[in-house]
């Protein structure tokens, strides 16, 4: 209670300090709350809400670069509905997000469990594994591009020397559709596992070890202990992390931009990269905006599902 004594001794209580009108207002929860929210509301209103409205406006007109368009209703969306490439981008994005998030969760959890022990160099190890998360994505993806390069791939080199492949049927990491998708998932996982691992590690550390010991004494094996004690207690953290990861992965741009440009033949084309290609590459700003906007309902759905799930686990 030492903090409270600051106020007692400052004489704020004992002296007859005047409650001016401003102070009165600030004491009112309602005004205080709204006041605190003001900077955020101004910032987001100006730089997100307003452009969002403008973006919707773009999507319902036929604006091209430098040429303001006029209202065309849902025409852009109809065009997209029939666009083969767009449909592929939708499928790719959903697949990419689903697989990458699942893998990141699994690997992140495993790594967190491994790190949740006392061993020498623990602190340094935790800092080191954050590196993939820290390095600017664009730059690390270039390193991966070099590692996947059909002519210079170090991965192929290793596989060759492990006698898993021959020179003739080398692995064309970025040139074969399913391999290209695998490659971008690998890079996304590489970048995301540290975030999952460290966050889940934090969650693990709040779990009282006595619970585990008690269960062990009762004869529960490691896997059972994990399933019935660790996992349920970890669920809140997991859901929050997953929510943000899904949102980020859905809107992923940099990895595909650097590694494949959406190829081969649009098999790695994602929402964000396609929106960019259409908007910037062909100057069809309205169509690009429509593509970006089309992400929104799907993302909202995914998020709502997760939020509901989080609410359920919170109240449980």
């Amino acid at each position, binding site marked *: 209670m030492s903090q409270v004594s600051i106020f007692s001794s400052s004489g704020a209580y004992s002296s007859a300090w005047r409650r001016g009108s401003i102070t009165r207002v600030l004491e009112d929860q309602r005004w205080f709350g709204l006041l605190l929210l003001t900077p955020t509301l101004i910032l987001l209103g100006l730089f997100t809400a307003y452009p969002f409205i403008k973006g919707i406006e773009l999507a319902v007109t036929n604006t091209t670069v430098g040429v303001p368009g006029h209202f065309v209703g849902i025409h852009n969306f109809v065009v997209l509905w029939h666009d083969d490439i767009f449909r592929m981008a939708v499928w790719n994005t959903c697949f990419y997000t689903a697989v990458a998030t699942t893998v990141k969760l699994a690997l992140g959890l495993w790594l967190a469990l491994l790190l949740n022990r006392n061993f020498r160099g623990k602190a340094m190890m935790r800092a080191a594994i954050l590196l993939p998360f820290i390095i600017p994505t664009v730059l690390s993806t270039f390193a991966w591009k070099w590692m996947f390069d059909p002519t210079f791939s170090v991965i192929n080199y290793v596989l060759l020397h492990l006698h898993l492949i021959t020179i003739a049927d080398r692995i064309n990491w970025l040139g074969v559709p399913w391999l290209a998708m695998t490659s971008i998932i690998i890079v996304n996982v590489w970048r995301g596992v540290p975030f999952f691992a460290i966050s889940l590690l934090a969650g693990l550390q709040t779990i009282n070890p006595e619970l585990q010991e008690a269960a062990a004494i009762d004869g529960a094996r490691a896997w059972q202990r994990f399933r019935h004690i660790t996992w349920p207690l970890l669920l809140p953290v997991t859901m929050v992390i997953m929510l943000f990861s899904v949102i980020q992965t859905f809107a992923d741009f940099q990895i595909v931009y650097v590694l494949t440009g959406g190829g*081969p033949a649009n098999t790695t084309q994602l929402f964000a990269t396609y929106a*960019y290609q259409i908007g910037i590459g*062909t100057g069809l700003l309205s169509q690009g905006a429509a593509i970006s906007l089309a992400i929104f309902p799907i993302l909202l759905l995914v998020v709502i599902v997760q939020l509901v799930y989080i609410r359920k686990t919170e109240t449980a």
Partner: protein
Amino acid sequence: MSIGGIGAVLATGRAPAYAQQRTLHWVRWSDFVPASDALLKGQITKECQKALGINLQLETINANDIQARVTSAIQSGNGPDIILGLNNWPQLYTASLADMTDVAEEIGQAQGGYYPISKQVATAGTKWIGVPWAVGGGLVAYRKSWFEAIGYPEFPDTWEKLQDAGKKLKAKGTPVGQALSHSFGDPPGFWYPWLWSFGGKEVAADGKTVALNSKETLESVKAAVPFWNDACDPGGLSWDDTSNNRAFLSGTIACTNNGASIYIEAKRKPDTYQTENGTPMYKDIRHAALPKGPGGQYNLPGPFTDMVMAYSKNQAAAKEFLKWIHSKPVFEEWFTSQQGYTDGATKYWEGDKVWSADPVLAPFKKVPAQGRLTGYAGPPDRAAAEVQTKYIIIDMYAKAVQGMKPEDAVNWATGELKSIYGV
């Protein structure tokens, strides 16, 4: 200047108007020949200051990023004064470019006229929307000794011969290298001429009717599959514009369609790039035109056009600058530094001494005259640019090569074209 005048200047602390610095912000791609960028940023910038009193701010960025900058500049109403556009990008931004008719006509008159392809991309109707800068040509760079060893003292001049040669070379581990991916330079440079050489085309001469769905196009797709499988490096499906350079210079492919940058780089560093016998590789490199198909022999050059932005407040300075830099003595400096990587946009530069400096590069001289642009047989307009940016033609071949039935690939591409051309 009168004493009162000087006093007035000193009093206000401002220089008189005529001594005020004019600044011009020019954005170009990072040249594949780095020496040219160094020249522009160094020598030419100094000369520009002296001759015109203009402070030239040259910014070079990755070609892939130019369009993003153009878009945000146009939409936000400020940005660079002059931007170098590749291919038919000027056609995408017609409404936002300043009228360059006077400048372009003057240069054209003085230098023997522009090539048709340069003029096509830089004009909208009779108005010039940019000043053609140069033309990037592509030819097949090949390893002479390797082709000789398999019985081709001259580079194969038909696709059948190239497929045969490629098969033999692939068996030796050094196939034909060609990009079939989403990259802006090399893939179109090969696959559009492939389409044309079979007689295929995107639209009819009216520029509106989609004509892709034809017997000729189908033939070209059917022929592409065995060509790719027998003779080409499968890595090409994921190559960017630099991959074929690297593959060639490291000795893993025998030939590739490219600009002169492979040869120029090999010549620049003879010790780094060597043949398997330890001799400098550049001595073994020659250039040839893309082979003939049943419908002819074509190439797709890459025109460069300087676009002066309509929002720019320095249009007068920009015009002065462009006139100056295209003047024969100044442009000559830059042109020489390119060593034949580009052709001039006007016929005058065919006679330049750079072509006699190195016979290996001489074939590049003829490229613009034999070139065609995308959107054939219509004009290289916005719709053609959209087809190119979406890689429709490229993907048509990519899909077939990866197993789709040629008829389906052609139908898919035709459908895409139809929605782009608004049919």
